[in-house]
């Protein structure tokens, strides 16, 4: 019992710290791409900036506008935040290092991802003002459409490994090969849908600062805002972690099988973290490169290209798996 509590607290703290420093990294990387410095003033290289931001957010007054539906308004950020953090519990961070191993962990991650959408719907609806409303409509439509190709892209993997457990998927890859090679189409589909699923640029229509003043969290003050923010970055981390686990071999990597015991755990963790951060860099890189899509383009892209491609991928994988 006590051990589980320690595990949970360690994990939540790790995720929150990683998210805090992700905001720092994002500002630095985007700054560098735009030939600027990014954050610089607070601490060496601006390293204390996340703490300054958090301090500012938690000391703000927790104010809610008159027109909102109070209970839903208060609970919406939690509904977004909790599933985003909860999904980390089934990710195998390294050889033998996870909070819980359930046999359907892949399904669990996807289910939690879908739950987050409700938070966004509640936030937009309960804010009772026009921008959050439009934004939450957009983002639900977007997230529901992009969940389909996201799931479809993972079915190929399930066919190959014959398992829904992330732990077993990684072990399969450790024995055979990284699934990105036989499932390259699946990986690309997953990558595109993951960007859309996390509401990141170039698919960030729901949060379009320029049109919708921040989107569904327009009305949120202090911690409510911070929770949405944390949830967005946590789900970026989650999507990267799932992509790494499912397609890029998780903790496996060169020479990992020559070690055992705690050395294997440490090296596995290192591989995992490096891969996750490479993917996180790509997230930021995409944001710095592409302009936002138009809404109808976004929807037709999902339904006309990604979903047929996902179905094609499943059939192809199934046929090939049957033949070989």
């Amino acid at each position, binding site marked *: 019992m006590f051990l589980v509590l320690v595990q949970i607290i360690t994990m939540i703290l790790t995720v929150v710290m990683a998210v805090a420093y992700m905001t720092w990294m994002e500002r630095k*990387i985007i700054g*560098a*791409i*735009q*030939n*600027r*410095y990014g954050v*610089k003033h607070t601490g060496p290289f601006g390293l204390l900036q996340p703490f300054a931001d958090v301090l500012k957010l938690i000391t703000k007054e927790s104010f809610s506008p008159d027109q909102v539906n109070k209970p839903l308004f208060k609970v919406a950020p939690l509904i977004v935040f909790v599933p985003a953090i909860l999904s980390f519990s089934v990710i195998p961070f390294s050889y033998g290092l996870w909070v819980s191993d359930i046999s359907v962990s892949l399904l669990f991650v996807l289910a939690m991802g879908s739950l987050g959408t409700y938070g966004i719907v509640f936030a937009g609806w309960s804010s009772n003002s026009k921008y959050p409303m439009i934004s939450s409509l957009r983002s639900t439509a977007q997230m529901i459409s992009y969940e389909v190709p996201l799931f479809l892209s993972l079915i190929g993997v399930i066919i190959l490994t014959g398992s829904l457990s992330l732990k077993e998927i990684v072990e399969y890859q450790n024995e055979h090969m990284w699934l990105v090679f036989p499932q390259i189409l699946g990986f690309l589909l997953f990558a595109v849908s993951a960007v859309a699923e996390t509401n990141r640029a170039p698919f960030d229509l729901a949060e379009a600062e320029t049109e919708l003043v921040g989107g569904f969290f327009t009305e949120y003050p202090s911690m409510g805002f911070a929770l949405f923010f944390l949830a967005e970055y946590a789900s970026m981390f989650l999507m990267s972690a799932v992509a790494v686990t499912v397609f890029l071999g998780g903790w496996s990597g060169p020479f990992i099988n020559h070690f055992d015991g705690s050395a294997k755990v440490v090296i596995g963790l290192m591989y995992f973290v490096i891969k996750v951060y490479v993917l996180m860099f790509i997230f930021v*890189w*995409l944001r*710095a*490169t*592409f302009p936002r899509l138009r809404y109808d383009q976004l929807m037709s892209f999902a339904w006309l290209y990604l979903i047929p491609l996902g179905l094609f991928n499943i059939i192809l994988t199934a046929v090939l798996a049957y033949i070989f």
Partner: protein
Amino acid sequence: MSTRDIIRKYLFTELLQGMAFTFKNIFVPKVTTLYPYESVQMPRRARGIHYMREKEEGLTACTACNTCVKACPANCIALTKTKCPTGKGSIAEEYTIDLAKCIFCGYCSDVCPYDAIHLGHSLHLATQGSRESMKADLPFLTGNYYTYLDEEENDAYGVNYGLVRKFSDKSQVRLQED
């Protein structure tokens, strides 16, 4: 449709081109000036705090003709006149420009018939003192003249000539006249 077009359309090579471009930009030197820590090099045409030319050490070129006072749209120049200690004519005894009112239009330097008042490049106007401390008096203005001369000698603004020239040929003529 050629093969090339098909590849471009369906493999999204343009997206990759864009990403390669932004990635290259990471290694381009930064363009930001870290302003409070580094000084900013103003372009030579920038109009900043005034200076007053001196004919010779201790004798300003101003003859207190009042032209600048009349030309000033912000009404911020005040001067009093006195007899010139060496020879005939008159000079300004007190000459103050209220920098808090001044809009840095440069009319005073344009109209001055004796080439006395000029606008320098310094933009550091902030002060912790009162409104009074924004008043630039004669010693201050002539002092600025010598800093300005030093800067010219050390070519402190040289780096920006190219930029100025690029934007306006007219300004180049003016620069040469300076």
